[in-house]
């Protein structure tokens, strides 16, 4: 009963909003270049869908590569920060300070320095993605269970053993949590970078549509960004689960197993 309500209630509310939008636009005679009704957006979506393949591929490539680069750099930096207190004291405050600059603001600079191709977009996504990964991994490594660190020390383990046996594995779930957050920003960052320059991509499609006052096409792109972001999140979430099998809920005990 409750599950049914949780599924049906929001769907119904969404439907009411869509119908309200449709009726409102039709009654008020708003021109389509200001706000088209959802039925027209849906029709446009079907029309332009075959043409969007290249744009989607470009945006996804930028977002995927950027996310990967950001995650690798974020994790490496987190490892350096955890392993060397000097790096931690020197670099971490600076990196945190740079986050007062929204990465989108840097997009023009990146295009100036890295050209009009794939690179500046990948860099912008990476810049956006690395910080959540870094912070989550550093936090996880700093919060290492004292019980585990003592166990390693009590067996004669050195700092190196602590790092490889405890700190680094303990950081993985944290870093993956950061990557989940980063995945929700990635497509948006790629699209914004495409607004400024580029030959293909959803951002380019939006700019082209804006110049032709084709608001319905812009709305199609907006919906597509939402769907792609959702899919990317699900993908990253699935990979994160695969990478941390010990965090799965415990399986029912197999036959033949008797607890002592």
């Amino acid at each position, binding site marked *: 009963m409750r599950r049914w309500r949780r599924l049906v209630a929001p769907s119904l509310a969404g439907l009411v909003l869509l119908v309200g939008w449709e009726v409102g636009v039709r009654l008020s005679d708003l021109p389509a270049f200001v706000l088209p009704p959802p039925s027209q957006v849906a029709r446009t979506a079907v029309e332009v869908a075959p043409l969007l393949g290249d744009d989607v591929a470009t945006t996804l490539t930028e977002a995927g590569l950027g996310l990967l680069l950001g995650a690798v750099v974020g994790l490496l930096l987190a490892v350096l920060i955890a392993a060397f207190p000097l790096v931690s004291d020197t670099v971490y405050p600076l990196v945190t300070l740079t986050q007062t600059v929204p990465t989108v603001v840097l997009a023009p600079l990146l295009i100036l320095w890295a050209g009009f191709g794939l690179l500046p977009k990948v860099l912008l996504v990476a810049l956006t993605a690395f910080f959540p990964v870094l912070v989550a991994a550093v936090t996880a490594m700093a919060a290492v269970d004292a*019980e585990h660190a003592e166990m390693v020390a009590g067996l*004669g383990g050195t700092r190196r053993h602590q790092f490889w046996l405890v700190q680094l594995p303990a950081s993985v779930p944290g870093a993956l949590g950061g990557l989940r957050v980063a995945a929700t920003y990635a497509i948006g960052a790629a699209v914004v970078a495409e607004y400024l320059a580029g030959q293909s991509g959803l951002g380019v499609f939006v700019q082209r549509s804006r110049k032709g006052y084709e608001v319905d096409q812009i709305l199609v792109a907006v919906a597509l960004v939402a769907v792609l972001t959702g899919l990317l999140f699900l993908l990253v979430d699935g990979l994160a689960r695969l990478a941390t099998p010990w965090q799965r809920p415990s399986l029912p005990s197999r036959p033949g197993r008797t607890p002592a």
Partner: protein
Amino acid sequence: MTTSLSTEAPTTAVPALEVAGLTVTFPGVVALHDVDLQVGVGEFVAVVGPSGCGKSTLLRILAGLTPSGATVTGATACPSAAAWMPQRDGLLPWRRALPNALVGARIAGQDRTVAEARARELFDEFGLAGFERAWPHELSGGMRQRLALLRTCLPGRPVLLLDEPFGALDAITRRRMNAWLAGLDLAGHGRTVVLVTHDVDEALLLADRVLVLSERPGRVVLDLPVPRDGTDGARRSLLDALEVMTRPR
């Protein structure tokens, strides 16, 4: 060094562990006061005492884990490498049972294939056969403790320091673990064991010698060899020694 041991002399000439005049102070609290202790090679010594008497602190210091904020004076000597087992199992949740067992061997720098073969044998002996690929959270409390003990034994360190290894288990499981551990013949063959516990019966069942620590600040108030034939007398002496301290005042 001359020791002020008023009780019995250790059984062997060369001690595996030696502590003289050990005093440990935390800010505002004296945890251990002037503790002397000698443990011979191959000896199994149990340390009992009321909770909070500093027995875990003593073991940590023997293991080279100085608690943070503690001031330590006196001499401790542990010529050979020790392996310490914490009260909580300390199993790493991201390693399956077998890799968890190999942590100690890896730290000791043992060859992986040799250590793994030995670990598989010990899984049998420790009643963990078939659980090599289980995650720690899939194991019962008793199995986790046995795995932690296996991890501590595998590197083959000559000194084992066990901090209430079964303290977190329920009474029935603990009794079964003790019977099993007593049959394991942990000490001997040049291996020395120091076991910290608050369970007098556990101490008598497992140890060759039982030390009683007083309430904080902990001092050694009784050093009792466990007779192999009937422990009733020894049990009474231990309970008497503990009774003096725990009597309500």
